[in-house]
């Protein structure tokens, strides 16, 4: 084959004697391709097995934040008034914790579209199973407190860690993109150069929620987990208190 046709301006040569592969030749080549593809696939799976596959955040398995929401030691126990403080740590019991757990898990499904919070109807308290070892005051059947109807979200415990973990690079003091600082409660409520980004009591109309729920923020790094977004929503809907 000559390669000077483009230098001389002559018409590019054409293969008049082109031979197509016979069936045997085609099958042999396709077999080679298939074998190589299988070997490559095995190598890929082995490589992913060795390196641990994907980071947990992609799989929605960020154990820290998920446990922070789902953990049975969280909201219900805090919400329940304890008449007598127990001197010894009480292990998580399956009594009233079970009433609040499904409502929180319902909103923290990875990949779920952000939606208005489900209405929490008063859940009948389950029959307490008396523990022969540790009878605690939390096991006494009691009417479900009002606090259980809305998830108790603390700014310091639930929301600020999310800001610090996911937003501080650009909105954390050293860098303040758009004038927004998310490192302390007063700064969060002050908002950006364009005004407040949080409307207390109305998460749906809060600009911050709109940004993180749509995935426009954070610009760098993966999106916030649904559980993290839900924590921010719950905190705003509860009045965006400095708690």
């Amino acid at each position: 084959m000559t390669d000077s046709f483009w230098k001389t301006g002559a018409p590019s040569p054409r293969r008049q004697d082109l031979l197509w592969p016979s069936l045997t030749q085609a099958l042999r080549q396709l077999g080679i391709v298939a074998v190589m593809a299988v070997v490559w696939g095995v190598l890929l799976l082995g490589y992913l097995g060795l390196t641990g596959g994907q980071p947990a955040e992609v799989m929605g398995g960020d154990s820290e934040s998920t446990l922070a929401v789902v953990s049975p030691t969280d909201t219900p126990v805090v919400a329940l008034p304890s008449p007598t403080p127990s001197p010894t740590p009480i292990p998580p019991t399956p009594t009233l914790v079970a009433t609040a757990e499904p409502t929180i898990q319902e909103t923290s499904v990875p990949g779920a579209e952000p939606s208005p919070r489900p209405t929490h109807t008063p859940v009948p308290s389950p029959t307490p199973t008396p523990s022969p070892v540790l009878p605690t005051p939390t096991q006494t059947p009691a009417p479900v407190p009002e606090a259980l109807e809305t998830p108790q979200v603390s700014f310091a415990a639930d929301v600020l860690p999310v800001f610090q973990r996911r937003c501080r690079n650009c909105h954390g003091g050293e860098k303040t993109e758009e004038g927004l600082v998310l490192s302390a409660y007063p700064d969060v409520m002050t908002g950006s150069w364009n005004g407040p980004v949080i409307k207390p009591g109305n998460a749906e109309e809060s600009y911050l929620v709109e940004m993180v729920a749509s995935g426009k923020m954070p610009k760098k790094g993966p999106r916030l987990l649904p559980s993290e977004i839900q924590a921010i929503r719950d905190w705003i809907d509860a009045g965006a208190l400095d708690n």
Partner: protein
Amino acid sequence: MEFINRLINALVDVHPLHSMTVHFPIALTGTALLFLVLALWRRNEALEQAAFYLITLSAVSTIVAGLTGYRDYMIRFEGDAPLVNVKIFLGVTLFGLTTVIALTRWRRSEILWRPSTMILYLSAFAGSFGLATVLGFLGGVILYGF
């Protein structure tokens, strides 16, 4: 001078370089495959040569895309980007495949026109384009979610 400084700042600090450079392997492998199919259809050696040059360029651009990708991974994502393992494996595979194609074609210029290697050669081009496409898709997943 101010414009030059802003340009350098934009290229080095503001814009993620990987997002710019990844388009080269995707476009080059796709065009190479197109030219190869056209060469077979038209039985045209010029098109086949163009495909060879394009796949060679795509091998080079894959190196650039990989290096800028690693830089963005370390600087912009602070080593915490998802799907990195898969992307590294696919990227290395893409570089290896395009390099092997280019070297083989360089040593054996008749590789497309021989019936015993035609399908292999064509499949390699298609595979490299597929790899580049999947890599681009995974990049989109990282940036925009899935």
